[in-house]
């Protein structure tokens, strides 16, 4: 989450004064932040803080009531989800949505077809992504037969197949056991390192956030109340106050 420290780094995504209300209830209130290119960014906050709403506004699920979202110098607020993906932003879903009737490979191919023109090309690209995510052994299995951690990997693989510059992860660690969480952390570290993929993750699982994120933003009641490096943010008074009573493992 770009704060004072990231002036030098290029910002791949900028959120400017974005607000959103649902039937009179203010979900997001004048939020602003930037994501440094090539960094792993975390967005945390208590339930109802507005994280998913911001996430969905970036992903194109809904348009902000006011404010701008700029991705790679281009304004994307109000675009449809498929247009957002085409622009270079991939996303996963909090409750995984595999194409249950298709095989694992076919699932990823759906994503690959966005950038590949032929089925052969899509297949090759998908296979390489499955290898990266350690799913290639399961390529011909139906997606419905996968365990939850594998489904999450599939979801990530599918999004990666669209060759995004920015990957949005919506509580991807939810429901995973600690060892599985650590494995996912490794996967993301690896992708970020080798491809320079910028990542934004919404998370409750602090173990993952602290291990992965280079910058963190904290939301509370729809407002950004703190941002900076992890070790700064967890000591911030406002953050501690809003989390009082919540279980955190730091």
């Amino acid at each position: 989450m770009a704060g004072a420290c990231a002036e030098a780094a290029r910002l791949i995504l900028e959120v400017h004064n974005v607000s959103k209300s649902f039937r009179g209830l203010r979900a997001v209130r004048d939020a602003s932040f930037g994501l440094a290119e090539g960094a792993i960014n975390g967005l945390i906050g208590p339930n109802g803080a507005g994280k998913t709403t911001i996430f969905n506004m970036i992903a194109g699920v809904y348009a902000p009531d006011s404010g701008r979202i700029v991705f790679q110098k281009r304004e994307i607020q109000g675009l449809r989800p498929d247009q957002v993906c085409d622009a270079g932003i991939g996303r996963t879903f909090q409750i995984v949505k595999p194409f249950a009737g298709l095989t694992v490979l076919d699932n990823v191919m759906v994503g690959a077809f966005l950038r590949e023109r032929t089925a052969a090309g899509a297949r090759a690209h998908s296979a390489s992504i499955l290898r990266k995510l350690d799913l290639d052994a399961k390529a011909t299995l139906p997606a419905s037969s996968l365990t939850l951690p594998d489904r999450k990997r599939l979801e990530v693989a599918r999004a990666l197949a669209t060759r995004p510059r920015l990957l949005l992860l919506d509580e991807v660690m939810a429901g995973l056991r600690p060892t599985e969480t650590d494995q996912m952390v490794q996967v993301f570290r690896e992708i970020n390192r080798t491809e320079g993929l910028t990542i934004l993750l919404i998370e409750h699982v602090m173990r993952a956030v602290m291990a992965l994120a280079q910058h963190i933003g904290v939301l509370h009641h729809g407002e950004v109340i703190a941002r900076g490096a992890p070790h700064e943010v967890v000591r911030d008074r406002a953050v501690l106050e809003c989390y009082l009573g919540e279980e955190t493992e730091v």
Partner: protein
Amino acid sequence: MTRAAVLLVVLVALLALLPWFVGAYALSVATLILYFAYTGQAWNVMMGFAGQLSLGHSLYVGVGAYVAGGIFFHWGIGPWAGLWLAIALCVLLGLVIGFLAFRFGISGVYFALLTIAFAEFTRIGFDHLGWTGGPGGMFLKVAQRDTWDIASFRGPPLMYYYSMLALAAGAFAVCHLLLRSKAGYYWQAIRENEDAAQALGINTFRWKMLAVAISAGMTAIAGVFFAFYYNNLFPEQIFNISRSIEIILGPIIGGLGTLFGPILGAAVLTLLSDGITELLIHFGWEIPGIKQVFYGVVLLAVVMFLPHGIWPALARRLRV
């Protein structure tokens, strides 16, 4: 070649040789089976591929038939010209329905009802349309020929049989290619989970419209065939909701979204229906309605015990 391709080639070869082994009646039954296999496949593109349940497909058969038949009846314009007009009109109709449905977020049951409403509306409309003969029907001049006149699509039953075979095989081939292409993957994705599909860059509206357009256009061709094969058209019959249900019975019984499903389903249904009729005549039970009751029972049985249709279970056995 894949096992499926081999099976297809064998099937087409057998069907091509069929006329040498059977009589005129069996040939007409076979033509009917191929007709339902074709329309079932066309419908399948909308439902099995894009997941939109249309219960008003008789609309496209009817419009296709009346357009081609109408311009032949009034101005003597041959079926090949009429074909293009029929396809164009039906595609437009399909796009209108699709646009209305998808833009306004109508899906599932409501979409099905919308398609029924359009078909019924058109049925009653044509009942009052003088140009096409109204409820009394439209009768095309029948010229029984022994020679094949492709230009005006008139000839012996054999010609119609081979035409239908070509159509059905063509539809099969087209759908097979589509399924393996980007379109096929995208449609299946939309069918499985539209939100996830959008998140992967798929403009679901445009792709759904494409499925609807292709489905409508293909069905229009069946309508043109219908007009020049049966030579009499009645709004009450051709637009009837029973026709729409007949169209979907094949794919549902055979297997939705599969390639061999519609053909298998059409074969099973037509043969069963004919077999039952023969049986009933044999026993002297020629009560009107008894055949449809058997039909309904078969449908019930398949829906209850073979929910994915007959083909998937069979395919597993044949390991296709």
